[in-house]
């Protein structure tokens, strides 16, 4: 039987891991053997070596450097976009479920519509509106903003159902009977009890948005060359025919899994381990 203390230990480990990853990425200027954009064209596609710990990519850029610098962007903006989508889901889905009736029906119809529309074309239009010479930072900020603004829909439905269930629970009825109503009831009594779904939404959104950013590269959004991101590094895995011979390409995936697992550890509840 697991002891309660083990969760605290693992949370500590998770915290340390995240801090380490963040710290290393911030120290990329000193730790990276070369700039993320420098092309060692004589050593393009090289395997790991003393000079290039994770080898080089197809045009000779040091992969280790790109992982370090890419961590900054993905680790900062991925969770930020995830937070935005979670908050939107909480507001829209949670409020709809809390208010019930026509509000819930209307909000969920809008949510279903949102789920079905081809947002690809909105993103293409956003790219068209942005100047061609937009700075890579603005491009990536806009990308993650769009992801956050569009990624709330699946969680909203679950949150609506959760809030709908909570609306009729005894403690909420009791609170209402005590004279607490409206926004206060929602923020103080209902919203905190939606944490499981909120945490799930946040946790899922981080890797999903990081990967989506890379896919949005086909529309001209996302991180522009030569800036690296985890998403663009993970796209190398699509060359599956040779991936078995180049296992070092899995390092960004392993790093992402470690970070995502660490986030989950941080979000886990204390009473999870009581038997």
């Amino acid at each position: 039987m697991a002891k309660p203390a083990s969760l605290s230990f693992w949370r500590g480990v998770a915290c340390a891991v995240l801090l380490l990853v963040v710290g290393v990425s911030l120290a990329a200027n000193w730790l990276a053997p070369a700039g993320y954009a420098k092309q060692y064209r004589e050593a393009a596609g090289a395997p790991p070596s003393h000079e290039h710990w994770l080898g080089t990519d197809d045009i000779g850029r040091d992969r280790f450097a790109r992982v370090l610098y890419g961590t900054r962007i993905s680790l900062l903006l991925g969770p930020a976009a995830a937070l935005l989508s979670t908050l939107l889901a909480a507001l829209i889905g949670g409020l709809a479920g809390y208010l019930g009736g026509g509000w819930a029906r209307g909000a969920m119809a809008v949510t279903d519509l949102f789920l079905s529309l081809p947002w690809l074309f909105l993103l293409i239009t956003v790219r068209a509106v942005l100047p061609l010479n937009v700075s890579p930072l603005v491009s990536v900020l806009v990308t993650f903003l769009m992801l956050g603004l569009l990624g709330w829909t699946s969680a909203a439905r679950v949150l609506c159902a959760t809030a709908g269930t909570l609306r009729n629970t005894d403690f909420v009825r009791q609170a209402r009977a005590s004279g607490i109503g409206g926004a206060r009831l929602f923020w103080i009594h209902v919203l905190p009890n939606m944490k499981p779904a909120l945490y799930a939404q946040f946790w899922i959104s981080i890797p999903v948005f990081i990967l989506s950013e890379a896919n949005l590269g086909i529309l001209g959004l996302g991180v522009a060359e030569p800036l690296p991101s985890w998403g663009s590094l993970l796209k190398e895995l699509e060359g599956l025919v040779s991936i078995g011979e180049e296992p070092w390409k899995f390092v960004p995936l392993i790093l992402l899994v470690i970070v995502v697992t660490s986030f989950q550890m941080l979000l886990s509840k204390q009473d999870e381990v009581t038997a």
Partner: protein
Amino acid sequence: MRSSRFTLTKSLKTFALAAFCLAIMTGSSLGQGQLRFCLRSEPKTFDPLKVEDDASVAIRYLTGGVLVRMNRQTQVLEPGLALSWKVSKDSRQISFKLRSGISFSDGTAFSAEDVAYTVQQLMDPGLHSATGDAFRSGPGKVETKVVSPTEISITFPAPVAGLDRQFDQVAMMSAHSPKKEMAVLGPFMVADYKPGATVLLKRNPNYWKTDEQGRKLPYLDSIQLDIQPNRDVEMLRFKRSEIDLINFLDSEYYDKLASTSPNLVHDAGPSLDSEQMWFNEVAKAPLPDYKKDWFRSAAFRRAISQAINRADMARVVFRGHAQPAVGPVSPANKFWFNAKLKAEPYSPDAALKALLTQGFHLDNGVLKDSKGNEVVFSIVTNSGNKYRERMATMIQEDLQKIGIKVNVVTLDFPSLIERITQTFDYEAILLGLTNVGLDPNDQMTVWLSSSDTHQWNPSEKTPETPWEAEIDNLMRAQAAAADPEKRKESFDRVQEIAVEQAPFIYLVNRNALSAVSAGVQGASPVILVPQTYWNAERLAVK
């Protein structure tokens, strides 16, 4: 006695049966298996006159019967359904003498009437196809005259350069068959089509051709074409022997296959295709005036060209399976290539010097023009093409060395086309040119300044520069000339101007790479499309 007679009779019967079978076999085809390969997209049409996309072109090549066929290996025009032909001196009229006794796949007889019907359909003003437009050299009606069931002459309103060669793309259709475009004269016919999945071609039982031993062609029973846009999956399937050939093999897969099975890969040398970039020279483009000044300066364009390391591009991006490009024509096009031209040498110092003489200056490592504007521009290319994305990133690094900041933007193809053809909202584009044919007339609309596909500055009312006017005159001259040497002289000069003025900055000519499995007999990949199955009627699969 009875027993001997019985034995003799039996032997005679056996011999007769064997002789009968041999007779059938001599007149019949070999029945040599099924060839399988992938199409990279869904075919849009089976109507040979409306073909535009690569998948439909492939099917037309395999099923269409043509009057003359360009031998992709020797690059010489050979008789097809026509035994002989004659082109008039003014290139307006062509007469064909057809083979007799030929039928379409459904048994309908083929005659000069079908040729007339096909040509009339092709030249219908409402058709709007690339195949038909190749013959539209001037306004007016096309006259067809059926002299006999096996003789026809076709007269065009204006000269058509390379008139006979153009018929390599025109698959004959039946005027009478109820099956319309599905009745074919080629070696194969469409037997089944599962949208999004496969196209199955079966041997055309009425195909007219035989081999040197008198055996009916094609050797193959069928060809299965799987629709597979993803090259990784295509490569996987080839390695698993699920398909027999890859027509356009990526250079990284070439190397990987070559390391384990060198006999399966083929490098036919430089192809006719080129990768190039160009700057926006459209006067009404929504760009700042100072940028327009840069892009419209030939000296600026040449300096950029000098600053790009083409050798690195060929070596790194294409793993050595490409050559630095010289000009609009690949060296693989032996007759038309201007051998006096050389690839631009990589020289960032010379490029910077040239820019400095133009009034640019370096300010803390950043190049600025005479008005103090930082030299920054974007290169747009189509997303999903990893080679172009890599080339653009390499150009970005090369130009950074001379203080120029380049932003690489990848867009989906429709958005890219809109910017190139309608909004002109771009600064530089990196794309490729696929040359299907050898003749410079195939590039006519690229060079004519009034054309919609004169990419750097389309649809000019009058040529905006003297050199564009010169190119217009030269292209028209070579199109009107009958003597190949005179044509070459004109087109050589076009190539020289193209290199001097650099409206296109030619980057590399990719090699024609392909893969053919060991079980395929008779394959001999070439540079002309279709590289691996150009002689499909003579291929066999063990």
